[in-house]
């Protein structure tokens, strides 16, 4: 299945691209996406991705299709074909 990952903020600077389409097997979870990102963009580890390579470094967070934020406890939730995952980092203030 195809999952679109859009990079915002720090993750865009590290990845050097705005978005990428991943061809992933059925049953892929958000944690699997983190693993894939770690593999493709190792420079994300330590700032966007936790050193364990399994979860995101706060305050980076996944958003699914513009509506649902993915909590730490939801990292094993399944993705569907055509889902758009936005990797963002919220910054308060200003």
């Amino acid at each position, binding site marked *: 299945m195809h999952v679109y990952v859009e990079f915002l903020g720090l993750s865009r600077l590290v990845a050097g691209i705005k978005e990428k389409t991943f061809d992933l097997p059925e049953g892929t979870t958000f944690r699997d996406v983190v693993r894939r990102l770690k593999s493709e963009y190792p420079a994300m580890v330590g700032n966007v991705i936790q050193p364990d390579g399994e979860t995101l470094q706060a305050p980076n967070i996944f958003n699914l299709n513009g509506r649902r934020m993915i909590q730490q406890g939801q990292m094993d939730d399944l993705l569907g074909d055509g889902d758009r995952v936005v990797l963002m980092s919220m910054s*308060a203030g200003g």
Partner: protein
Amino acid sequence: MHGYSGKILHIDLATRKTWAESKPEKWYKVYIGGVSMATRLCWENIEVGCDPLSPGNPICVAGGLFAGTPVPVGGKWGLASKSPLTHFIGDSLSGSWFAIALKRAQWDGIVIHGASEEWVNVLVDDGRVEFRPASHLLGLGTYETEEAIREELGDDQVRSATIGPAGENQVLFANVTNDSRQAGRTGHGAVWGSKKLKALSIRGTNGVTVFDPKTLLELSYDIVDAAQGPHTQKYRILGTVSNVLNMNRLGLLPTRNYQQGVFEHAEIVSGEYLHENYRVKTIACAQCPIACEQMSRAKDGPYAGAMSGIEYESLYAVSSNCGIGDMQAAIKIIDVCDRGGIDTMSTGVTISWAMETFEKGVFAKEDFKCAKYPEGFEPYFGNAEAGVTLAEMIRDREGIGDLLALGTRKASARVDAERGTETFKWAMNIKGLETPGYDARALKTFALGLAAGTRGACHNRTAAYDPDIKGEVDRFSVDETRGELAKSTEEYAAVYDTLPLCKFIRRCFTGKADRAGAWPAIAKLINATTGWDFDYDDVDLIGERAHTIKKAFNIREGWTRADDHLPWRWQNEPMEEGASAGHVVTEEELEYLKDIYYEAKGWTQEGLIPREKLIALGMDDVAEEIGV
């Protein structure tokens, strides 16, 4: 007493008398510093019910507990007066060297009374006060005024808080500026202008003593180390402007005066685009290891050379919210605001109100005549040059700028009264303060936080967007948890605003930003500075007390439950596209949210504060005046 001098300086601009007031240690334990102490000084010194631009409204400056110490991001100070925009408490924070100069001059706070007959620069030279003529400084911008005072005094260590032309002209959302940082939002600049106070300068030459310097240094080193890591990386590299694309994706980016939450040109007014194309350097406040301010310069075109520090809340207001997809124009508008001494957010939102009023046919081209465009101009959404020109006209109160200088609430009321229109329906303010860069129609905990905000629609005084945006609650609906969430997040923010510490350090104590992660560490910093014995609960009380004194101030100035409102648009007009389309905060939802919020606060259903609540917080004299 350590960490404080125990003295407040009073200055009367009319009589030119000065005096020192001693405060007991228990007073400091309740009010601490920053916005809380500044508000308390305002409570004690204001003529209740006064016109904010009259001599009875004092200027109240409060220092920071950690200013001048090694504690990172503690170089901040608080400023309070009755706001001419809201007629309630106007409490602001600013940062950097002025805060340290105040501490070194050994004043915990300064109260400026009355009004001067001539323009004046008040110089506080340690224990001496000098009233210096300032007429020759009129018309100078904020940065230029500060520099001129340094040159005049031949001392580059003198630090000044100044007003620009907007403050002189009493634009109701004029700022006070020091070290290129702004005490913004609620119109302090207008209050200073009404008193003919062009600047407050401080030369502080004393040392700063703390209870346990060795421990304080060790604690501070650890925080500085953490502040170089991932917890602050987003601020150091991109700054808050990275929120443009986040908000756009969530359908929450104010666009064309909050008519939409998605901006088609978001990419070219984004933080990422700014970083790539216009960022010159990143700078820091004094005493800050983070350095978040993205100094950016327009490099070509009609606004080439304009330069300013760009923050998200300024950027959304003058770009997407005005339909302007031109980063260089946005930099120029922010530059006009910062040098002229006007709040960027209120300026942008007031301009967007004028643009919509023009597009709906209430205003016509001839309403926009000015020296630059004698025949007038057409300020449709997206007209960048109109945005720049209107910011200049507001600053100078030229032409229609005189009306817009009143802010959206008063300007719309005047237009509607004169023309029989309903422009109030798109006047985006709460209590008169223009709304921030998060569309609260689809952030319902945040909507409550804003509605209940003591200084109006302020994102900095409530962190209630946090649970909404992070998805910890359903942001599109309301439930019984939101009252406690609004209380908890506003009091959390008030702890930082009172010490004060910049909130960007909040993850650097233990890696976790919540109370459990931060309060024990902050208690250690307080104790090493003062010799007190604060614990988690004492730190938590700092926030409740700070919020309570601000609320008490408002109640005494006539606040009622009806003042906790939302803009008409957020209650009646859903957005049509994007991830937040289709939502409003209904009247029923808002009234329910207020009910459960007042209950969580321990207040009455009218939103008043019981006497016993105030007494339990150590505010016995406040209980006497407004307790029920």
